[in-house]
């Protein structure tokens, strides 16, 4: 008869399997392993141990593939493909309006307008910036019309345009006095590049609009305001009036609102948690820009506020990723041969 020590060692090997798979099959597999063991054996054979570890790796790999191939991700990307162009456009317009009301030139997420530019530089830079906004408006309109490929083409052109102008601004006379960091370039491109990818790989904005309920549209509107608040111009327009401490509190409150928004999205629909993750990446990109580039081009109060915000967003994203992964592997494992 096989020993109790052998069973303990088999149990130890079975711990390499995903928890969901183990909860359904562990007892059954133990029965099979013990039935096949020769009498008197108290250690698994090497080949048997390797086979169990390889089996665990195969099932884990399959669970991971189920996570990335799932309909949930395609649906989340479909919603993202229509929501993000709208979110970027609306938040940029709100940011611009706030900056204009405050008497500064600037346009929200893409604002690089410093004070003190001469009369030639100002219109040139404004035209450059508004062309960027126009490209996002075109993506939003095409997405709302359900024209997936045209919207993807417009988003790719928008990414190319924003990338080119950001790089050129480092080396042309227009860059005089413009506080820009190389960090800005990749993050200014987060929205148009992710839009392009979402439009190309998802079933498209038409499917996204079918999935969006009234609550999702309301959240999109709220998200646009929050995103505008995360950008520098609107932040200055709104928060600098009350001094540094008020601005720091306002920044933290903004991050908390983002956290609540993500949570609400996460819970509101089956694809919500995946969508929350995608928007989290977008919000993190914008927050990073806000944190590292302040009005003087140097590290300042914004950097500190931004760092606090970044830690919160990283923690939030880690929690979302963990929950998404755990639920998805659980669902993939649970759909195996078991009864769960």
């Amino acid at each position: 008869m096989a020993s109790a020590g052998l069973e303990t060692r088999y149990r130890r090997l079975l711990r390499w399997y995903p928890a969901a798979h183990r909860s359904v099959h562990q007892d059954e597999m133990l029965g099979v392993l013990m039935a096949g063991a020769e009498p008197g054996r108290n250690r698994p054979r090497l080949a048997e141990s390797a086979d169990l570890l390889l089996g665990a790796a195969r099932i884990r790999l399959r669970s991971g593939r189920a996570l990335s191939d799932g309909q949930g991700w395609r649906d989340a990307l479909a919603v993202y493909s229509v929501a993000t162009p709208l979110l970027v456009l609306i938040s940029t317009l709100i940011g611009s309006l706030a900056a204009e009301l405050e008497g500064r030139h600037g346009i929200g997420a893409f604002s690089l307008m410093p004070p003190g530019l001469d009369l030639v530089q100002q219109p040139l830079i404004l035209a450059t910036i508004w062309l960027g906004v126009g490209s996002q408006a075109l993506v939003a309109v095409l997405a709302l019309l359900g024209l997936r490929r045209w919207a993807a083409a417009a988003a790719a052109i928008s990414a190319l345009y924003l990338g080119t102008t950001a790089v050129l601004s480092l080396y042309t006379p227009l860059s005089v006095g413009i506080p820009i960091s190389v960090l800005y370039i990749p993050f200014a491109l987060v929205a148009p590049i992710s839009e392009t990818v979402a439009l190309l790989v998802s079933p498209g904005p038409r499917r996204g609009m079918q999935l969006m309920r009234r609550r999702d549209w309301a959240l999109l509107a709220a998200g646009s305001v929050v995103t505008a608040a995360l950008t520098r111009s609107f932040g200055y327009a709104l928060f600098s009036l009350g001094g540094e401490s008020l601005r720091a509190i306002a920044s933290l409150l903004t991050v908390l609102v983002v956290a609540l928004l993500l949570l609400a999205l996460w819970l509101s629909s089956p694809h919500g948690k995946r969508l929350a993750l995608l928007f989290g990446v977008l919000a993190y990109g914008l927050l990073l820009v806000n944190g590292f580039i302040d009005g003087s081009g140097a590290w300042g109060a914004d950097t500190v506020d931004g760092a606090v915000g970044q830690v919160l967003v990283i923690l939030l994203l880690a929690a979302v990723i963990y929950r998404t992964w755990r639920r998805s592997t659980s669902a993939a494992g649970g759909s195996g041969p078991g009864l769960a």
Partner: protein
Amino acid sequence: MQEPSFLILTALAAGPQHGYGIMTDVAQISDGRVKLRAGTLYAALDRLSLDRLLEVDREEIVDTRLRRYYRLTPAGRSKLVAETARLRANAAAAAKRLGLAGG
């Protein structure tokens, strides 16, 4: 279709079997050439189940151990029939070219 999957479906073609039963049956079907171990068996069962080729028939407790019986689904039976026909056609073509009797 990989050989272990084909042999597992073949083992279940005559009726439902539990994990250890499938292992011993596969060894018998293949004249001892294929000996499935538990890790390989359950990875294959997991994949075949995800492909809806087999499903759980029933569970029993024998000597305090859980036994779960699996059976072919209609899709699994169709797949096995198609695979058998494909292998038979390949074998016939090979036998014919080799000039073997019955080819």
